């Protein structure tokens, strides 16, 4: 790890070298390792150490950005020069109201020295344990066990300095049989608390239960969706329409509906970068502290997230959801929470005469963004529910479904949410029982 002092030195050098009215420096440094396995053997085992210095130069309202992976004085000077030179070619943009000023940042700890010290040998032994479990049952295990540490430093010429160091540990596995498969994942800040063996057992149990799947006609079914799949739906909602840019461009399902019942009154969805139950991030990529933002409060649309640019357009304050500049995607929620309910597994299943149990979704994509219609496949454990019991495994099905309609039709919510780590940030969601979920075709396995 470089440490706060080292990152601040680099940022200061780069700021001083930037000949502009305003300047911002974002430094991200990481050391990450990933042990990957397939057919119950480690087949890829990797490590990377990297650093990126990103300089944003502002001349009036003209902006240029340049990056480098070198931190020597000459490289920083050249990068600052490239950023400022680029800005000279850009026309003025009256929508840009300037870089944010400093605000108090609430520190949130998401660092474990145990994770930083996790060795290749230890990862390999963890993986071997899961592989041995699978081999003993005549199955094949594949997956990835990744650990790493990330440092983020943000500074600007208005006095912003924000620093955070975090670690991540994420274990994912797909276990496969002749005609079946199962999935599990576990994530934590501290790698030593990740129960890799239980993930292996969960995936193996799902694989064994999903042997000899049968065909099921596509159609609308009452469907129980595990947190893995709920997390995917929530992630796509955030990508499609929970940021201010999509609203300002008229592309969001939130347009014209703030204050209205947009999903079921049992749905409360929010973003909170400071909640230690998630993957906490105290500030965004402009150094603005994260604010808790509620999207749906008992189903009523409340608002979206902002960065300084989109906030400036409306005379509002940034909510601390900027991505690295230049950012054409707009602000993005990265720490999502869906409120759990009170249903245990039996309660979720109770009363379903003929329905489906879905473990996770695969290759989801957006079909129609303003209605939040997604399509994708089920994967790694899809079962028929009959009279409140999981009975038979079925071939995977394609769904084509509006997420908003699905969230308007929730019959029960699981009581134990699960933490799922994304590339940046994470999602904490429970299982859902959805009254009608549309499956439009089936595949052959």
């Amino acid at each position, binding site marked *: 790890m470089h440490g706060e002092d080292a990152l601040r030195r680099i940022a200061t050098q780069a700021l001083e070298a930037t000949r502009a009215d305003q300047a911002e420096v974002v430094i991200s440094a990481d050391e990450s390792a990933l042990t990957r396995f397939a057919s119950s053997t480690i087949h890829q085992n990797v*490590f990377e150490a990297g650093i990126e210095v990103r300089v944003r130069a502002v001349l009036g309202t003209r902006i240029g950005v340049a990056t480098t992976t070198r931190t020597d004085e000459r490289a920083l000077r050249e990068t600052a020069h490239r950023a400022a030179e680029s800005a000279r070619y850009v026309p003025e943009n009256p929508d840009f109201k300037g870089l944010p000023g400093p605000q108090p940042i609430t520190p949130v700890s998401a660092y474990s020295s145990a994770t930083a010290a996790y060795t290749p040998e230890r990862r390999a032994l963890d993986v071997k344990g899961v*592989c041995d479990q699978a081999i003993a049952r005549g199955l094949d295990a594949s997956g990835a066990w990744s650990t790493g540490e990330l440092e983020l430093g943000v500074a600007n010429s208005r006095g912003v300095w924000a620093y955070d160091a975090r670690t991540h540990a994420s274990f994912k596995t797909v276990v496969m049989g002749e005609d079946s498969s199962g999935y599990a994942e576990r994530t934590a800040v501290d790698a030593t608390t990740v129960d890799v063996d239980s993930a292996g057992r969960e995936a193996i149990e799902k694989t064994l239960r999903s042997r000899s799947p049968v065909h099921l006609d596509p159609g609308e079914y009452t469907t129980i969706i595990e947190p893995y799949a709920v997390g995917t739906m929530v992630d796509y909602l955030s990508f499609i329409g929970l940021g201010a840019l999509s609203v300002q461009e008229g592309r969001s399902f939130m347009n014209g509906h703030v204050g209205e019942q947009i999903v079921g009154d049992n749905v409360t969805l929010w973003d909170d970068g400071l909640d230690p139950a998630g993957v906490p991030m105290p500030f965004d990529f402009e150094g603005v502290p994260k604010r808790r933002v509620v999207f749906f409060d008992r189903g009523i649309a409340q608002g979206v997230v902002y960065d300084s640019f989109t906030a400036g357009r409306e005379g509002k304050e940034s909510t601390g959801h900027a991505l690295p500049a230049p950012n*054409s995607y707009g602000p993005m929620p990265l720490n999502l929470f869906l409120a759990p309910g009170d249903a245990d597994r039996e309660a979720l299943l109770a009363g379903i005469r003929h329905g489906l149990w879905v473990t996770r979704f695969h290759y989801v994509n957006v079909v129609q963004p303003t209605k939040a219609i997604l*399509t994708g*496949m089920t994967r790694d454990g899809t079962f028929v529910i009959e009279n409140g019991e999981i009975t038979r495994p079925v071939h995977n099905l394609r769904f084509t479904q509006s997420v908003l309609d699905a969230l308007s039709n929730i019959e029960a919510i699981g009581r134990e949410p699960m933490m799922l780590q994304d590339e940046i940030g994470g999602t904490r969601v429970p299982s859902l029982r959805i009254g009608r979920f549309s499956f439009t075709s089936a595949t*052959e396995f």
Partner: protein
Amino acid sequence: MRDYARRALDLAQLRGASFADVRFEERRVQSISTKNGAVDALLEEESQGFNIRVLVDGAWGFAASAVLSGPEVDRIAALAVEIARSSVLAKRENVQLGSPVVSQGTYRTPFQKDPFAVPVGDKIALLLRADAAMRGVGGLAIAEAALECLRIRKTYASTEGSYVEQDLVETGGGIVATAVGEGEVQQRSFPNSFGRHQGTGGWELIEAMQLVENAPRMAEQAVLLLGAPQCPSEFTTVVIDPTQMALQVHESCGHAVELDRVLGMEAAYAGTSFLTPDKIGMKYGSEHVNIVADATVPTGLGTFGWDDEGVPAGFTPLISGGRFVDYLSSRETAARFDKPSNGTVRAGSWSRLPIIRMTNINLLPGQWGFDDLIADTDRGLYLDTNRSWSIDDKRLNFQFGTEIAWEIVGGKLGRMLKNPTYAGITPEFWGSCDAVCREWRMWGTTNCGKGQPPQTMHVGHGTAAARFRNVRVGIV
């Protein structure tokens, strides 16, 4: 770089590696985008780094760093060996690489005009002219234009004696016109979806696009789509435009023939493939379907001198006369079948492990002229420009959406239709192909994702329009 390469390889062998290879990369990317009359982004990226891959006791280790110095080379080489030794703990059989590969030489992307030599001001002016041409159409909500220039200088060396240097240049650009209606968004992209077509080559690729000239047509279509009738739900004949054919080839063939995927190496992420080794020779499509991997095609994003294992760029038939004949392979995967690699291994950046990636996966042209094909089609849909895509984890069940469709009635293009989608099962779909056009060109896909940790690759697809019978359309 030779000295660093020698140092890394020597240290790896000293510490017990039976094989090692090392890659150095310097990358420069310039990205410019505009939106509604303003410059949305102007980004100049530079990155550099190196990586080393080692085999110790028949197991792999890999390590990468952004710091290029003697001590760091030593640290990373030693770490790669340590990681490989840990891999041995969960090894079931030794990795085999087949016969040694010894390549020497240099390769440079041929181009006419260095894209980095074009002044930034001229680039911005071009994009803003295209932007203005779109916004000149009444009713358009968002006009976007973008371009990207990329240069990668990379060096590969191995303990077998390979040393190759490559200088790869890419240029790409495009426009997107977005119209917003009552709870509805419609867009038209040119030359390809999501605002960009890219190729290996120089500024001449941008000039050939004629972005400004095509901008009003895209904007007009986006606005008209708001009021167009919905694509019907039915089984019908479809003629698919070359850009959507590129996506079709990519998802249902290119990924399906990656041998690492077939052998289960991607099972934990993107999945496996229905094209298991026992399927060699199976009927993948009709006799009109011929698909090849060709890393030598001019302007292809998958065109290079050597892959990231030092294997020379090559040509491999994948589907011949509708029959499945071969895979995309690496040294390790090909060795399992006592064959040499056909040179498709690439890494997305200096920090990523090289893995099998598509090169240029091309549907070979047929005999039909496009106008004749439409005239020959009594009833159906012409589907144009990809909008969404999804396929199952064995590459069988797919559902794709395009930005626009036109009815074909009595051999003529008719009404515009919105929100077209189509779906199928891969071999059934390709089996229904009864015509491929002869107007053929290369397309570039810049967002192909694979691997853990994830990495993005630029790949190419040469395609022409093609016709398919009895296809399910109008899923939504």
